[in-house]
């Protein structure tokens, strides 16, 4: 049926194309014609819509602001344009020329805001919602939607944790966190909560993004709403208009030198090695006896991985809304190479949105959006031994990248007596030769039928389907590896994985809205069913005869642990209802509730109810404020509600039998099985109760508007695999436990400092988010992360380790201070004896560790400036985050004082002797791993550094042409720079937004945020683009 439908759409589309080219060439001159010019402050307004009220008849002003349209006396012309107040002009008999002046609109209060299951006039919104139009985001040369939103939303922290194209965006609404459930918001595209990757969607398809933050706005999404909801509305035609838009940009990306982690160069490293042996009273190996021979011979392994990479995007958008048919089509090609060699990200996308008005009572609509994403990323990110970037950083700069013939070396190893304990392949080869590609084919379709049997009542039924097919291919030829200490040739290996998922959703909604006197109300009720199935097929194989054919059948070994298939399914049945009421548009009330039944919840706990309510009062409509010359708008609002998080895994409630616990008897593989988890029929969702209080103010005719929200949330019943003693044979018990309190303040200000020829608008936001763990499970007051603790009474996931007091300054200091038996020496790291037992210990609950840092910021902020002057426009977007720390985990190698790896340049200034104690950051090298190992292996405050930053995300400068051929309605050229500058004192690497063991992409990462292992760098991107309307 879909195919049939699709072909119909295609035919229509071809028709549209022809039609549009014709209409744009024809003039509208007719006998009974009214003409005119639309202006504002004396300047013509091109592109303004002139519509005859109550009809679909309309036209658009040309570049001089002129229009002509058939009209009869008594008609009313409705003239509108974005950013201007809409004006209505009655057509009077005998007058054929109308000069219409539009006034700049400074207020967006009459705008319609997309909310869950509907829309609302902004003035009457009682929840905490922020929406952004797609046009505001159009010029930014980035691959993901989240990147475009950075810095624009109050209360939403968006971090780019890695520079890998199309990946690594972490979105946290109001600081929401979970111990082991997911923390990413729910993405709803045209009413359909999607299960696939939001980054597959072409940002140019987006018309509007609404971010729902408080419980009243989100509770209609019930058990999936606790992390916040992002509603995405795709493009539709504007009434009476036909438009063809071409948006193209191309440019390049480069990693700035500024901000890179400063490593020793070859000469500095050789000098360090020389000093290392001298300080230990040992013979200096020949290769390091004269460091000056390495002058100018540096091998910067990190830089060798990088390249200047092109980025381009092409989008053609057709929209038309005429004669009961509203269609839009967006065709997009996005092509990005990465700044690390062999990175590729391509997206081909198409979207066809069509609505038909079958009769006055029935509407139907279908949106079909297929896209294809190809992505190859070298194994850049990861710990030592797995991530190529970390590996490159810690490789000796005296090891040659290229041989005397300019060819990339194959393998580097220095003799054992130089302290080179690991052999290294050439990382540039690794990046070039390893294949790590994913191709995704996605199809998102949404369709609806809407029936309005009587005035004010509508029934809407939707059927939505999402199909995702992704193929992953990893291949490791025998000439390359991403691991250290692996001899070349190595064992060639490959992984093939196919994921197929399908999700369908049927929703049935009845809406009744009416106005009786001063009472406006709307009632909505509905029910829905959604089902999801994912099939995973994976084969991992190794040992190949020929590197060119890394197929499964050519492998000698099929790796049993990495070869499996798996099915993941869930279902969700829901009923929901909402009642909205306003009196004279100034006393506002909303109540809603959703009931969710889910296959994920235990059999004793299958249904959850998620209610909410909100109230608002528009004070500025009251007599005492009406006509106030300063305060033009004032509203206070408050909401309370309960939402859930159902990201608890699909089969977590069941006790599962693992039937691959195999054994060998007499060298014969024999199948075995074991019960590997405990069941919990009471398992349920995570519950978040949230209260929000806020107000919105407008001053000076809304030239300045100000918004404030305070929220407090309590999340309980957190999904957690409670660790149980393993004498039970199990590691944990999946349960709903604990309580975390979150609270925060959000400020937003929008201002128009100047109007007229030079127009300047500013949007700024500032957010404070806090949290505290109030309770964990019975008998458990702490949960450890990688270098973190989540402890009752403290904020979530704090850095946890020993506190560094300095280095033992001399023998006296060593003698008089607590130390580590058998390990501490003069010049070694001096740690605080936190438990006061006289010795320094690490391990268990009662050792000397304490909280040593906070990965969460004190506040985050963003500011966007837009300037317009004559034909020029400019925007500057910046955002920052203040007070958070990062854990420089890579220092465990990059500051390994045994000289086995390349080191950070700061390690030059380490402890050499009591008379030469250095900067105090790094201790003595004498004593070998027994002494130096403490500093690198025991988590301590030396790893924790402030990572406050302010980033100029984007600067765009555009010029709109006025003298154009008739076929072109408007044309704008622009230049855009992304990630222009980062201001920070963080010295551990190029990206202060990094979070490599908790990027929210998988479970469990929440407990270990803010860890830096040297990620894929975030480039500075400079592009040039054109935006042309036909």
């Amino acid at each position: 049926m879909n195919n049939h439908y699709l072909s119909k759409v295609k035919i229509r589309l071809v028709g549209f194309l022809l039609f549009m080219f014709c209409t744009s060439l024809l003039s509208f001159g007719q006998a009974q014609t009214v003409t005119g010019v639309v202006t504002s402050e004396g300047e013509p307004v091109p592109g303004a819509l002139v519509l005859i009220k109550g009809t679909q008849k309309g036209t658009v002003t040309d570049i001089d602001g002129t229009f002509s349209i058939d009209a009869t006396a008594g008609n009313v012309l409705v003239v509108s344009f974005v950013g201007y107040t809409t004006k209505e002009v009655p057509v009077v008999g005998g007058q054929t020329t109308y000069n219409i002046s539009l006034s700049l609109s400074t207020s967006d209060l009459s705008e319609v805001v997309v909310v869950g299951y509907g829309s609302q006039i902004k003035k009457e919104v009682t929840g905490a919602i922020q929406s952004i139009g797609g046009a505001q985001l159009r010029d930014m040369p980035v691959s993901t939607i989240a990147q475009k939103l950075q810095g624009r939303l109050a209360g939403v922290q968006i971090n780019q944790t890695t520079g890998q194209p199309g990946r690594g965006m972490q979105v946290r609404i109001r600081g929401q966190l979970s111990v082991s459930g997911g923390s990413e918001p729910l993405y709803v595209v045209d009413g359909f909560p999607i299960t696939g990757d939001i980054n597959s969607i072409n940002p140019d398809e987006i018309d509007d993004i609404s971010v729902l933050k408080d419980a009243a706005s989100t509770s209609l999404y019930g058990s999936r709403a606790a992390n916040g909801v992002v509603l995405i509305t795709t493009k539709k035609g504007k009434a009476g208009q036909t438009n063809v838009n071409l948006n193209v940009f191309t440019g390049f990306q480069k990693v700035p030198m500024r901000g890179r982690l400063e490593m020793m160069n070859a000469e500095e490293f050789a000098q360090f090695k020389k000093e290392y042996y001298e300080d230990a009273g040992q013979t200096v190996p020949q290769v390091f006896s004269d460091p000056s021979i390495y002058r100018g011979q540096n091998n910067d392994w990190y830089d060798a991985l990088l390249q200047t990479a092109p980025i381009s995007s092409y989008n053609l958008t057709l929209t038309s809304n005429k004669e009961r048919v509203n269609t839009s089509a967006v065709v997009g090609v996005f092509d990005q190479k990465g700044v690390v060699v062999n990175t590729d990200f391509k997206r081909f996308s198409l979207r066809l949105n069509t609505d038909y008005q079958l009769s006055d009572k029935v509407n139907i609509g279908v949106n079909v959006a297929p896209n294809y994403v190809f992505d190859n990323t070298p194994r850049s990110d990861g710990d030592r031994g797995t991530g190529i970037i970390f590996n490159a950083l810690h490789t000796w700069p005296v090891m040659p990248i290229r041989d005397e013939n300019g060819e990339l070396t194959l393998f580097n190893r220095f003799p054992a007596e130089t302290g080179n304990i690991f052999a290294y392949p050439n990382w540039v080869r690794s990046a070039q030769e390893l294949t790590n590609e994913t191709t995704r084919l996605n199809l998102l379709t949404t369709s609806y039928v809407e029936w309005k049997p009587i005035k004010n009542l509508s029934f809407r039924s939707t059927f939505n389907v999402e199909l995702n097919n992704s193929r992953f291919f990893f291949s490791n030829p025998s000439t390359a590896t991403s691991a250290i200490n692996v001899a070349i040739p190595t064992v060639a290996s490959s992984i093939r994985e196919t994921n197929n998922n399908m999700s369908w959703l049927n929703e049935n909604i009845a809406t009744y809205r009416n106005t009786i006197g001063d009472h406006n109300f709307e009632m909505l009720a509905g029910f829905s069913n959604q089902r999801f199935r994912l099939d995973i097929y994976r084969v991992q194989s190794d040992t190949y005869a020929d590197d060119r054919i890394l197929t499964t059948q050519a492998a000698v070994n099929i790796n049993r642990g990495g070869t499996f298939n798996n099915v993941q399914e869930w279902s969700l049945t829901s009923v929901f209802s909402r009642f909205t009421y306003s009196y004279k548009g100034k006393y506002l009330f909303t109540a809603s509730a959703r009931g969710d039944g889910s296959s994920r919840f235990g059999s004793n706990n299958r249904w959850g109810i998620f209610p909410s309510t909100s109230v608002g009062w528009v004070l500025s409509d009251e007599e005492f404020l009406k006509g106030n010359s300063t305060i033009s708008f004032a509203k206070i609002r408050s909401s309370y509600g309960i939402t859930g998080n159902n990201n608890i895994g699909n089969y977590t409630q069941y006790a599962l039998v693992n039937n691959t616990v195999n054994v060998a008897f007499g060298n014969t593989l024999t199948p075995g099985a074991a019960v590997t988890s405990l069941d919990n029929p009471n398992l349920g969702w995570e519950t978040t109760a949230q209260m929000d209080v806020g107000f919105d103010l407008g001053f000076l005719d809304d030239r300045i508007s100000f918004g404030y929200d305070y929220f407090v949330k309590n999340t309980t019943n957190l999904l957690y695999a409670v660790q149980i003693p393993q004498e039970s044979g199990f590691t944990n018990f999946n349960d709903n436990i604990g309580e975390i309190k979150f609270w925060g303040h959000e400020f937003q200000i929008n201002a128009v400092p100047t109007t007229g020829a030079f127009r300047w608008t500013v949007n700024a936001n500032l957010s404070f988010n806090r949290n505290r763990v109030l309770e964990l499970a019975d008998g458990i007051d702490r949960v450890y992360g990688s270098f973190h603790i989540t402890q009752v009474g403290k904020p979530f996931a704090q850095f946890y380790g020993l506190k560094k007091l300095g280095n033992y300054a001399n023998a006296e200091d060593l003698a008089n201070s607590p130390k580590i038996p058998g390990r501490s020496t003069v010049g070694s790291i001096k740690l605080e004896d936190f438990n006061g037992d006289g010795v320094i210990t690490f391990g268990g609950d009662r050792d000397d560790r304490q909280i040593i840092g906070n990965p969460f910021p004190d506040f985050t902020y963003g500011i966007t400036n837009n300037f317009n002057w004559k034909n020029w426009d400019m925007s500057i977007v910046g955002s920052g985050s203040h007070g958070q720390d990062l854990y420089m985990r890579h220092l465990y190698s990059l500051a390994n004082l045994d000289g086995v790896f390349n080191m950070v340049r700061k390690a030059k200034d380490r402890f050499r002797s009591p008379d030469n104690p250095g900067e105090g950051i790094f201790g003595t090298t004498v004593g070998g791993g027994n002494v130096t190992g403490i500093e690198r292996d025991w988590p301590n405050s030396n790893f924790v550094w402030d990572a406050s930053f302010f980033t100029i995300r984007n600067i765009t400068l555009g010029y709109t042409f006025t003298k154009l051929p008739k076929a072109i309605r408007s044309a704008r050229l622009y230049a855009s720079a992304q990630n222009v500058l980062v201001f920070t004192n963080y010295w551990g690497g190029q990206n202060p937004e990094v979070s490599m063991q908790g990027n929210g992409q998988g479970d469990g990462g929440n407990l270990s945020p803010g860890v830096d292992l040297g990620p894929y760098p975030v480039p500075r991107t400079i592009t040039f683009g054109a935006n042309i309307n036909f």
Partner: protein
Amino acid sequence: MKKYSILLLVLLMTFTSCDDFLTIVPETQLSSATFFKTENDFVQAVNGAYAPLRAYYNGPAWLLGELHSDNTFYMRNVLFGAVENAENLADFSVPVSNGTTPNTNVLGAWRGLYLIIARANQVLAPIDAVNFNQDSKNNVKGQALFLRAFAYFHLVRYFGKVPLHLTPVPGREGAALPLSEEAAVFDQIIKDLTDAIPLLPQKSAQLPGRVTQGAARTLLGDVFIYRKRWADAEQVLAPVVSSGQYSLMSSYAMAFPKNTTNKNNAESVFEIQFREGPDGLQGNFLYQHLPYPLTVAEVRSLFNTSNPQPLDGQGNNIPTPDIIAAYEPGDLRKDASIMFITVSGRPGPNKTTPIIKKFQDNHAQHNNHGVNWPVYRYAEVLLLLAEAQNEQGKTGEALGLLNQVRSRAGLAASTAAGQTQVREAIFKERRVELAFENKRWFDIIRTDRIQEIIVPYGQRIVANPLDYYFPPIPGAVPRNNVFTNLDKFYPYPAAESDLSPFF
């Protein structure tokens, strides 16, 4: 109005089918509710109970049972600091705080052994209520009882008092149990094995590698000897010798299973089954029992794999000068047990380093071998029986058994005479016959010889660090806290103590 009724009907239909719609059981995994119904389920489940033995013998068993004795030591590599978990066992400095230790090897042993117990309990709890072939049921039950007793016997010797789990844990409640007295644990071990013996078939009637009646008798004999119940030990062990199921291999070297061959041979009473390849059933203990660093060429000459890789880190389980000296002149077992290799990356002039040879064998892939680990060999049965007899004054019979073992090693009959001398002779024989088979620490504690053996051993190391493989580098000497923890029992693992209210 009709239209509304239709809508209502659709609504109702949706909800009546709700329960089905909302019940989704995993398609690619069984759940415990549907398992334990058939003979095959129980056979698979008891197989699963063997599985944790691999990880235990690949690591914790030799770390706690052999490296923690005077037979082997570690080889200090100054470039590596993060190795204290093995070091602390080798040099008797296991840290203790409130009776617990953060040592990860102690933790690994605890968790691995309790995993065996839990899986055995999963089999034993429901098995009587399910109808299937009685012989098969007896066999499965016997194996499960053996495995549970085997794990508890290791735990009770490592820790003394331990929690005694005999039924599957249902949830968070009951996951932790109070510590049971040592005697109670031993009573349960003896009961389980006494029950298991009649249920289990003899070796000739059992699939190779599975627990046999002979294995259960040997284990029970070992338990009785640990408890000094000499007569009981003799009674349970004698039928193993008389069964005709076992014999000594013609040469000592032949007693040890190879990578793919000679597994479960005539001398084997119970051995841990490994299998090389990509199926996850392999071991890599040969790689852990090496001095580091080793070059690719040195690794290749040891194992002849197709993809040798360089090795670095810290070597463990290196034979001490003490064990090398313990062999009598002419003892064929010395060259079969220990070999010397050249470690070119070893600091200082002395590059020649001893390693364990008895498990050594070539294999295909680096760090992946199928060499089985011998737990009980017939030679040990003879020595256990000899000890049980000698302690009851049957010195002559004991000497006969002892000399069987000596004779295979190319040695003359023992000259020991009288109960005391024979006792010493057996103790000494056990050391060399069973060297590197994780018997030494248990022998030392059950004969109360920590002061006699370990204390002077520690003094020798501190006095002559170069003899014990410390590199000739300034500062690379034994730490100042070595040989400070000479307790018979290991402290409880801290990570488990943190979760249990009972210790």
